């Protein structure tokens, strides 16, 4: 019986990289988002240097600041995962180690995003 699969679907994901331009695109989009967020982050870090814990809690408990910090942390960490994936792809050539490290990076990204968001919610609810 003739397969209903289209010729395009049969070859999708079969190139040397097993994927198309998605990785490149996500790196670019996250880096554009990180331009204003990084400038804001630098402004906040300089503004909080040398202050005490009470000031930091007050500042980070404000909804806009909490949301921007969560966005900065989450998008940075996602961008980090994309970058570390390229490093692993380039330098690790043993299939088992490579898959282990790629999964480890993804797990670390999710765990760190969750931890940052948890900390920010905790700060805001004191």
């Amino acid at each position, binding site marked *: 019986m003739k397969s209903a699969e289209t010729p395009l679907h049969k070859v999708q994901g079969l190139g040397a990289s097993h994927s198309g331009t998605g990785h490149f695109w996500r790196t*670019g989009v996250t*880096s*554009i988002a*990180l*331009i204003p967020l*990084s400038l804001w982050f*630098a402004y*906040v870090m*300089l*503004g*909080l*240097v*040398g*202050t*005490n*814990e*009470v*000031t*930091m*809690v007050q*500042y*980070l408990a404000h909804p806009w600041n909490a949301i921007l*910090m969560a966005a900065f*942390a989450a998008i*940075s*960490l996602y961008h*980090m995962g994309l*970058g*570390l994936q390229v*490093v692993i792809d380039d330098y690790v*050539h*043993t*299939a088992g180690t490579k898959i282990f490290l790629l999964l480890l990076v993804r797990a670390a990204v999710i765990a*760190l995003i969750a*931890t*940052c968001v*948890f*900390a*920010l919610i*905790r*700060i805001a609810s*004191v």
Partner: protein
Amino acid sequence: MADLPQKPGRVRPLSPHLTIWRWQVTMLASIMHRATGMALSAGAIVLTWWLISISDGPEGYDSFMVYAAMPLGILVLFGFTWAFAFHFCNGVRHLAWDLGYGFDKHVASNTGFLVIAVSFILTLAAFALIWTGHAGYLQ
């Protein structure tokens, strides 16, 4: 790929790597972009630690500051600041390339020197603000 079996006794040629080329600023900036990106992954862990320490109350924050205020801690934070400034500036350079701008040989070299210089200026400016008492303005 090393996981593909090779016939014994037959050493296949590898493409030339880092050691064979004369250093160029474009190559240096490219290597630095990857190195600072990897360093900033450690920075992301410190950022997470900082946020958790604040959420732990004054004692939790003190436990972070014990390390952050040490000479070694300040040196590490100086390093993260420079890595952040460089990765930011060179990232903008990469985005310009993605849009098709600045790929001309001499332009790429000049912007390479530029982002390295600007990254150091921004880092020194940030620490100058801190050491002259102009930071901490959100209090």
